């Protein structure tokens, strides 16, 4: 048997240097700090950990974080598919501009989005004043939801768009020759084909929303009781001082959030693998 080789032979130089640097940099910047966080969590005894994760503030933040994120991602799926459809299928003046604007939430710093959304939806703001005082948006869970919709929108559009572009028109024609009306074709043929991309977009938007801090903190305000998990971490870090428990509590929440991120990452990979296996290359 041939001696094990770590890589296939290649005449191209520089593998050791490039690979070594990549691994070292990755370890120093990402892997070791994340491992440190988990180690920190293990210093916590079980009873304390349990007290933290069953405490009312944690549970309320958990509920708001996951609830608002799921609702925002869901909204983004519906509206994102419509937008992707319009951008891919229809030709109208200004289409390219709209297409470019989609990426605004990626490019706009979250603090800028936050301060702006916070004002627009406040009782004096352009939209907030239409609803105040009956419905308050800023400083309530509705505001959190709006901020999460804002930052998550591009994910769904940008995952669905390329799949829609590659869709074979003949498949739609086939459905039509078999007697399917347009709406039936969309519901039974096009949407199921887009499903893996839609699920991926949902997962990406959801993951981003769960971790979001910058745009939410402005619209949720401080001391309003509208607290999501990242805000809770920051609050506990701030009151830390020499209080080791608060730091541990923050670490525990962070660890939980990291586990959620990993789970979502895994889910996305599984969705891709499943759809590749079943439908061929997507």
């Amino acid at each position: 048997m041939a001696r094990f080789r770590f890589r296939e032979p290649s005449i191209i130089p520089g593998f050791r240097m490039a690979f070594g640097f990549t691994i070292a940099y990755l370890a120093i910047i990402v892997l070791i700090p994340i491992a440190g966080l988990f180690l920190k969590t293990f210093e916590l005894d079980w009873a304390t950990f349990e007290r933290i994760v069953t405490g009312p503030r944690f549970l309320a933040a958990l509920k708001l974080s996951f609830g608002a994120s799921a609702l925002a991602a869901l909204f983004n799926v519906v509206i994102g598919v419509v937008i992707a459809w319009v951008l891919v299928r229809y030709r109208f003046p200004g289409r390219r501009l709209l297409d470019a604007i989609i990426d605004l939430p990626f490019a706009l710093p979250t603090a800028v989005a936050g301060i702006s959304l916070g004002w627009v939806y406040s009782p004096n703001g352009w939209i907030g004043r239409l609803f105040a005082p009956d419905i308050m948006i800023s400083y309530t869970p509705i505001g959190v939801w709006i901020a999460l919709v804002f930052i998550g929108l591009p994910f769904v559009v940008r995952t669905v768009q390329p799949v829609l572009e590659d869709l074979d028109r003949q498949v739609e024609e086939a459905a039509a020759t078999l007697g399917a009306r347009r709406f039936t074709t969309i519901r039974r043929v096009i949407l199921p084909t887009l499903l893996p991309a839609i699920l991926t977009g949902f997962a990406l938007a959801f993951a981003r929303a769960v971790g979001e801090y910058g745009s939410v903190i402005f619209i949720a305000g401080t001391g309003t009781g509208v607290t999501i998990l990242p805000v809770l971490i920051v609050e506990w870090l701030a009151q830390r001082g020499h209080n080791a428990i608060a730091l541990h509590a923050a670490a525990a929440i962070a660890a939980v959030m990291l586990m959620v991120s990993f789970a979502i990452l895994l889910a996305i990979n599984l969705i891709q693998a499943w759809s590749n296996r079943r439908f061929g290359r997507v």
Partner: protein
Amino acid sequence: MDISIVDVRKEFGRYPALNDVSLTIRSGELIALLGPSGSGKTTLLRLIAGLEMPTAGTVLFGDEDASRKTVQERNVGFVFQHYALFRHMTVAENIGFGLRVRPRARRPARAEIRSRAVQLLDLVQLSGLEDRFPAQLSGGQRQRVALARALAIDPRVLLLDEPFGALDAQVRRELRRWLRELHDKTGHTTVFVTHDQEEAIELADRVVVMSQGRIEQIGSADEIYDSPASPFVFSFIGESSALPVVVRGGRVAFEDTDLAISAADIADGPARLCVRPHDVDLGEPGPGRVPGRVSLVRRSGAGRRVEVVAGKDAHRVEIEIPPDLSPSVGSTVGLGVRRWRLFPERAPAA
């Protein structure tokens, strides 16, 4: 039910894809639309299906005007070139799709749709594959599933776009024979598009030869092979060479040589003399023979291929001779024409 295409014209933008095409397809017939790419054959097929609407003219299904019906209402079975199977549905779901999307009043029960799918899979000889996904099938199998799916809706006409185009030669031949048998068994009126003359001639009852948006000839395999209606058909079906000649008073001349050919029924003027490789013999130059020079000799299967450059403008003529003859390259020869077709030179199309 006959299908009639009457004076159909189709323009994409300002470019005419079909020029006043008329065609009648008889009930139960198997028809091939044959032509090079850009000849309008696929456009014609899509017009029959209702995937395109004619710029002018009508498509009749029996006596009714199908041009007023949408593709959904026409009830045609269409097999796409790349099959266009629904990749998120199993084979059985694909086949049952046309039944499942019917309005509730006409929709068969779930179990009935399933049994119909199984039955059709049996017909296309794919029993047992009903729960596979299209990605798990070979090209030939996908082709048959696409056909079964089209047959499931009991179509008034079956339309196939380059049905064997994406398959390799071996599978192609098998499927061709199988499709013919299937047609004879089910009796569906069938129209298929192909650019492969062998396929068209072998499979179809009648062949429609198309070129540049026009129908050049409609006929049986024998008719289009033995009596081609135009130089295009002559050259498109089988191998051929053409020489520019002049007809005067029933005599045919190539450059200065009077060929021993009578052309009593052809008006005076320039014409095109078309010949097939095996209808020409090679000999010494002499009266009534086309003078030329051998430019290439190569072995080809059972015979020998010779390329002769004839006349002042070096027109290439390909001929086939027995293998025991072997003229040397560069030698001067005379070509005797045994069978030929003469076409008066058409004035350039407006």
